[in-house]
């Protein structure tokens, strides 16, 4: 279409502005936007990893949205760009094929535990292709126990039945359309699934490649970002768009410069977000846990007592952090695949301990892992370690302490007994399978807690999850301890909230980044949920960080070297923690609420 009618039309519509003013405005816009390589998008997503690509997929998914009249149509005229620093991921079939030879292939340790809600955000076709290519590690039961107390916690998929029946949680089985199976046997709801990074990203990109509403720009290095200032918002003159300049390296070694403008720039470029840093205005709370995680894939010993544990996630709490043994590659029936059974290990501990583990040979690592993981919980040890008794010898406190001790032990035993009445299997401790060899490189990474902060200077909000025309999602806004496996799940919840708001804006004919309305709503929602989750996980870390007296625990060698004694108050806290775990395990409603929160469902009664 030639521009002449448009000019005529504009001049007609706009109450005939003086032509000089009009052309000034046009030329000003031309100068900021060079004619050659400038493209405008509604949404530009920086970072094509799991979070960024999941956001793009949700935005393009028309079956999800608020407006019933526009469902099942490509009605939302959205134009999206996805900027990825690396080259675009290979198709999922290549990822699966290249690893088809049994000896050279192993699950990569870089994997995520995704809750049922997060899995549903991936959409049926992505989930189906992951499940069919055996790249999901489904778990429908979970066993958590501790090193120094009698407590154990068992979650099973049935804990989510209530939420699924209420419609608060997606039934993934109906999602996967496994209607060919007999309806008589109702499959257990999943508690979650472990998915490696590479197949996950590949599967989502496969979906995006089919859509012409998105430009997938790989090998892109963002150079500058020019976002509007806070003062530009809420004025009659709408805020300028965010301008992004970047270079894209081509296959022939030539670099290509691009200028993009966008209604909204979404930073999905990870914990070290370039967008967040270059836009500025994003104060962060960062705190190191003083912990390091070691992760790898191990091959399991399936010779004995492995039956019925293929879909169980194990987590044992040690004084400095938990060891988790998570299933991978089990979404295709194990009877059909005769290959080795793998599991993903995530072991969080002190940096020195972690470095020690990283330095071990493969066989030493396996034996250390088996030693620490394959131990049952203590059965009601005495609260008062022998060493503490002489300290308060003869006083009335000894008697009091002993009374408390016996009371707590009785309560604990009663709870354990009480559990039996509900479901005997819950109380039955199952020893996790032993590992036979390390199947992948062993990786280590430092754990930090971080979350964006707001500062309300000069009356209006600054920082948080948004600034004018910019929004943060995923690790760009928060990082946390992996013990609850909620890192990516919180990112996926960000993505879902943002996609919902973008669709609401588009369905209302509004500019999602040009008004504070949607940005404020996104920020308010995510600040609440984000701090809730980050704080909750940090609380768990603190609670389980207290160590009691444990023979054979990692803590002991250090403590014995220091000559210190263990017990006393630490032991009391440890004991109340055990009691708490048993309470959660024993009392159905409490346990179910916890399972639902972990699965991403909203607990009953909360709007």
């Amino acid at each position, binding site marked *: *279409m030639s521009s002449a009618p448009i000019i005529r039309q504009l001049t007609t519509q706009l109450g005939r502005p003086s032509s000089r003013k009009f052309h000034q405005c046009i030329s000003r816009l031309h100068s900021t936007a060079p004619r050659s390589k400038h493209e405008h998008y509604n949404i530009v997503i920086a970072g094509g990893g799991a979070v960024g690509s999941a956001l793009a997929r949700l935005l393009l998914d028309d079956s999800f949205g608020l407006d019933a009249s526009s469902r099942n149509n490509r009605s939302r005229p959205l134009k999206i760009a996805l900027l990825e620093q690396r080259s675009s991921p290979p198709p999922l079939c290549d990822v699966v094929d290249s690893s088809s030879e049994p000896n050279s292939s192993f699950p990569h340790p870089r994997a995520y535990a995704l809750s049922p809600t997060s899995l549903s955000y991936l959409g049926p076709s992505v989930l189906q292709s992951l499940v069919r290519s055996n790249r999901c590690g489904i778990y429908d039961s979970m066993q958590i126990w501790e090193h120094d107390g009698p407590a154990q916690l068992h979650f099973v998929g049935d804990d989510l039945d209530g939420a699924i029946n209420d419609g608060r949680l997606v039934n993934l089985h109906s999602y996967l359309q496994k209607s060919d199976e007999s309806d008589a046997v109702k499959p257990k709801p999943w508690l979650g699934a472990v998915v490696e990074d590479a197949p996950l990203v590949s599967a989502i990109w496969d979906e995006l490649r089919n859509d012409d509403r998105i430009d997938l720009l790989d090998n892109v290095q963002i150079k500058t970002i020019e976002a509007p200032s806070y003062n530009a918002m809420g004025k009659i003159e709408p805020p300028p768009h965010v301008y992004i300049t970047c270079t894209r390296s081509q296959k022939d070694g030539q670099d290509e410069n691009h200028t993009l403008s966008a209604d909204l720039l979404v930073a999905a470029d990870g914990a070290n977000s370039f967008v967040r840093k270059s836009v500025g205005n994003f104060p962060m709370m960062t705190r190191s846990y003083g912990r390091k995680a070691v992760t790898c894939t191990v091959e399991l010993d399936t010779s004995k007592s492995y039956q019925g544990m293929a879909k169980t996630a194990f987590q044992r709490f040690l004084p400095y952090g938990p060891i988790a043994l998570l299933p991978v590659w089990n979404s295709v029936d194990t009877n059909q695949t005769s290959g080795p059974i793998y599991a993903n290990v995530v072991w969080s501990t002190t940096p020195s301990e972690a470095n020690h583990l990283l330095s071990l040979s493969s066989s030493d690592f396996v034996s250390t892992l088996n030693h620490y993981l394959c131990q049952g919980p203590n059965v009601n040890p005495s609260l008062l370690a022998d060493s503490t008794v002489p300290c308060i010898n003869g006083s009335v406190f000894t008697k009091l302490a002993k009374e408390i001790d016996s009371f707590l032990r009785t309560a604990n035993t009663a709870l354990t007994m009480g559990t039996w009445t509900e479901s005997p299997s819950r109380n039955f401790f199952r020893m996790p399978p032993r590992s036979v060899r390390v199947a992948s490189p062993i990786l280590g990474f430092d754990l930090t807690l971080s979350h964006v902060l707001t500062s309300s200077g000069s009356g209006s909000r600054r920082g948080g999850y948004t600034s004018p025309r910019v929004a943060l999602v995923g690790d760009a806004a928060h990082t946390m301890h992996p013990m609850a496996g909620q890192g990516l799940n919180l990112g996926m919840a960000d993505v879902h909230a943002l996609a919902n708001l973008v669709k609401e804006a588009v369905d209302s004919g509004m500019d999602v980044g040009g008004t504070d309305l949607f940005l404020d709503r996104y920020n308010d929602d995510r600040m609440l949920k984000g701090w809730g989750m980050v704080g909750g996980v940090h609380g768990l870390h603190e609670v389980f960080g207290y160590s009691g007296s444990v023979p054979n625990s990692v803590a002991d060698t250090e403590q014995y070297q220091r000559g210190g004694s263990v017990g006393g108050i630490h032991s009391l806290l440890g004991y109340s923690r055990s009691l708490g775990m048993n309470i959660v395990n024993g009392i159905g409603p409490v346990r179910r609420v916890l399972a639902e929160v972990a699965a991403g469902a909203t607990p009953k009664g909360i709007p």
Partner: protein
Amino acid sequence: MVSATLLSTAGAILNGRHRAPPFLLRKELVFGCFTTFSKLMYLREASSSNNIVDKSASINEVEPPNASQIEVNKFSSFASQWWDSRSNPLVSMNPVRIKFLRDAVHQFQVQRLSASLTEDYKQTTHRLPLYNKQILDIGCGGGLLTESLSRLGASLVVGVDASPKVVDAAKLHSFHESSRLFTFVHNERQNDNELGYNGIPRVHYFGGLTVEELAAKWHSKPNVNGSSEHLFDIITALEVVEHVPNPRSLLQAATSLLKPNGILFVSTINRTIKSYAIAILAAEYFTSKVPVGTHNWEQFLSPKEVETLVCGGDDSMKQVLLSGMVLRPPFIDMQWSLNYTDTDVNWIGAYQKHSMN
């Protein structure tokens, strides 16, 4: 009818039409531009020949018949904050109002017209109920609703407001949006998508003019063979009837501008004890979400009263849909949703002009 639809859909698929451009077909767009252009010429003629524009300039001397000067001044002073979602609660109300509009238009107008529509047109209207509609926005203010309607595919949106100052703000905002759009259209590859979302703001504003005056000018134009082409498919009078001295005259003028099967949307606040507590006490005094004195409880109207005003003297008008607009429970974040049963405070209704035959 159903089988015919199926057949034509099957035909379209066989012809490869099922992968039609996602939003606007190019020829439709060009055609839309052309018709819009001719309509705008019509508008210009209408306004210049009767000196509407000049009249808006001299608004302070001649008081318009159905607009209280106090109300006009109140909103004029608010013009600069019109697009600020943190001080204007209408911004947060926009999505829910448009959702109701889309739902009602989709439900009633498309169904009613479906017999005479081509398959292409039907598909487009299904995707975008407001596509190719002529809309009049009464009490457009700073143009929040007006621009949104234009973005959603309306072929022409006329905004009219008694306050010339807020309309100046609306014009300024539209001007910036359009000049920005001009750059994209000029620079980008010819893709239908971006034209769709950004939409060509086919907006025309009249400031300092009441609907009665607009209707008089509109009807004074000789129309060809009694055709209703120059009238409006959709007329919105949202949050405006409680601000005029004579709502009956406003609603009757609006009704007279409606095409057969056209829909008039009215939203206001109900006159109940609850609305006094929420819309006056809570909104204006306790939370300061709305400037004190914005609303006068005596001027609020109940759905029944508006139905009487709209449909009372005109048998062709029927109330087709009615819904309350309520704030979602954590009230602080101003999230509105439709509630079809609770019309005690804010409510919105759709009134359709049925064909007489």
